[in-house]
């Protein structure tokens, strides 16, 4: 379905985001991409639909090399890749319906989209999706009137109405509360399974990745350092991905740590005060 070969990205500033990434995602697989900030997760999924042009390597999608496509063919290819964004990236001043329908822009001509004259089949689709995500009563609300969870649902509907084969999901829960985060992740995974879509989800919340993904890939400094099941994510692997940290820190350990550090502060503070 999606295959990356020696994918390399170096920004104009000289910063290397991806060194050489080989990755294959089969149809129907929900894959979580985890890693610290700056590991290149966002760059990786943006290279796939060429929102960020890759500087080396190849990307095969649907048996075509995405890196070699001309601009017209690229637009056609993007229709097959739905994207869901961190902080939703809805067009704030357009209605829920317009935002959902904007997922069809790659299929309708300019004037039809400008005059909002979408084919009835698209509108049927939009209503079906809005019902599925539970927002069919908010069709005419403006996007900036919705709550975070509702906005992300609209974002999901916009990606799915493209009728994609691949979902590229960039930190979908970064600005949501824990419960809404789970609901959103569940919804994305359910919809991906229903439609048998390949799905790459950037996520920095490891427990969520464990809970919902079939496969986890760990990225560190632009390189894959882990590729396996969620169960295989043990302390050593997490240390390998994120660096040294006590992964078992619990309530008691935190309390103890706090006391320890406050003791330290008192001891160091006293002699300092005397010297003044």
């Amino acid at each position, binding site marked *: 379905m999606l295959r990356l070969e020696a994918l390399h990205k170096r920004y104009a500033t000289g910063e290397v985001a991806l060194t050489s990434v080989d990755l294959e995602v089969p149809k129907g697989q929900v894959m979580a991409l985890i890693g610290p900030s700056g590991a290149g997760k966002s760059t990786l999924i943006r290279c796939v639909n060429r929102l960020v042009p890759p500087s080396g390597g190849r990307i095969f999608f649907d048996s075509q090399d995405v890196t070699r496509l001309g601009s017209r063919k690229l637009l056609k*290819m993007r229709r097959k890749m739905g994207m869901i964004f961190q902080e939703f990236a809805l067009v704030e*001043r357009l209605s829920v319906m317009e935002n959902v329908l*904007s997922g069809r822009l790659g299929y309708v001509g300019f004037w039809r989209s400008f005059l909002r004259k979408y084919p009835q089949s698209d509108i049927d689709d939009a209503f079906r999706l809005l019902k599925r995500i539970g927002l069919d009563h908010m069709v005419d609300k403006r996007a900036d009137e919705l709550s975070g969870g509702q906005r992300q649902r609209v974002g999901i509907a916009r990606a799915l109405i493209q009728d994609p084969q691949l979902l*590229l999901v960039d930190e979908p829960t970064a600005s949501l509360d824990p419960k809404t985060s789970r609901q959103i992740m569940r919804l994305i995974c359910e919809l991906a399974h229903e439609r048998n879509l390949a799905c790459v989800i950037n996520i920095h919340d490891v427990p969520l990745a464990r809970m919902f993904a079939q496969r986890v890939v760990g990225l560190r400094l632009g390189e894959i350092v882990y590729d396996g099941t969620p169960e295989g994510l043990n302390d050593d692997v997490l240390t390998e991905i994120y660096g040294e940290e006590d992964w078992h820190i619990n309530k008691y350990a935190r309390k103890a740590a706090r006391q320890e550090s406050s003791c330290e502060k008192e001891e160091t503070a006293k002699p300092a005060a005397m010297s003044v």
Partner: protein
Amino acid sequence: MAVSQQGNLKVWHRFDRKQQWISWAGWLTGTIIFVYCFQLISEKTFWMFVWDAPTQVGDLAYRMIPPTWGYFDKIWKPLWDTINIATLGTLLAIIIAVPIAFIAAANTTPSTKFVRPFALLAIVSSRSINSIIWALLLVAIVGPGLFAGIIAIGLRSVGFIAKLLYEAIEEIDPKQVEAIQATGAGRLQVLTYGIVPQILPAFAGISVYRWDINIRESTVLGLVGAGGIGLQLNASIMELAWSKVSLILIAIIITVIFSEWISAKVRHAII
């Protein structure tokens, strides 16, 4: 900062001795210059006229009151012309300014090196020439009348609208644009879905604000023969018909208040 030791006390002053001297010298020089300039100006002023000013003001007010209300049926037509000059001029400016703004904005320009500098040049040259100077030129080119006024107002406003609009375009949220690009939308679709909704409130605000300014500017265009109420105003001042002048001033004030009211309404409605 000056810290000095007096016995075992640490004394702090904002300035040290040297800074205090510099500051004192600065004030002294300033005072000398002021006194000298005052003398220069005073020598070239006919103080007799200045002492006379309150009497003159009183006299003028006396002649202005009451306004010649009957003259009103002669000025409503030029007043209407004035509003039309402002409105049509603003529309003309909008039509020219919108494409210039998109070319001038760093994130939507087709080419930073070749096209953008021309757009910026157009903006600067339009803004740096006052509408009354545009009107002088245009009266010479297309002859006196409303048409010259409309074009003068239009040309002056292009730079204003284009500048504010391109700044608004540069401040849009790029994520919304990215999201539209990711759907496979074409360039024009990205423009109408990703960018236009974001700048619409700014666009409406800028246009109405400029229209409001233009109403005020077009009241003086008549002074150089470019149509509108300014012509009557000039004529009345020339023939020392102060009661007519006051009527015209009242009419202008009412029009301006009316235009401010409309522009406030429109801004509230759109944002």
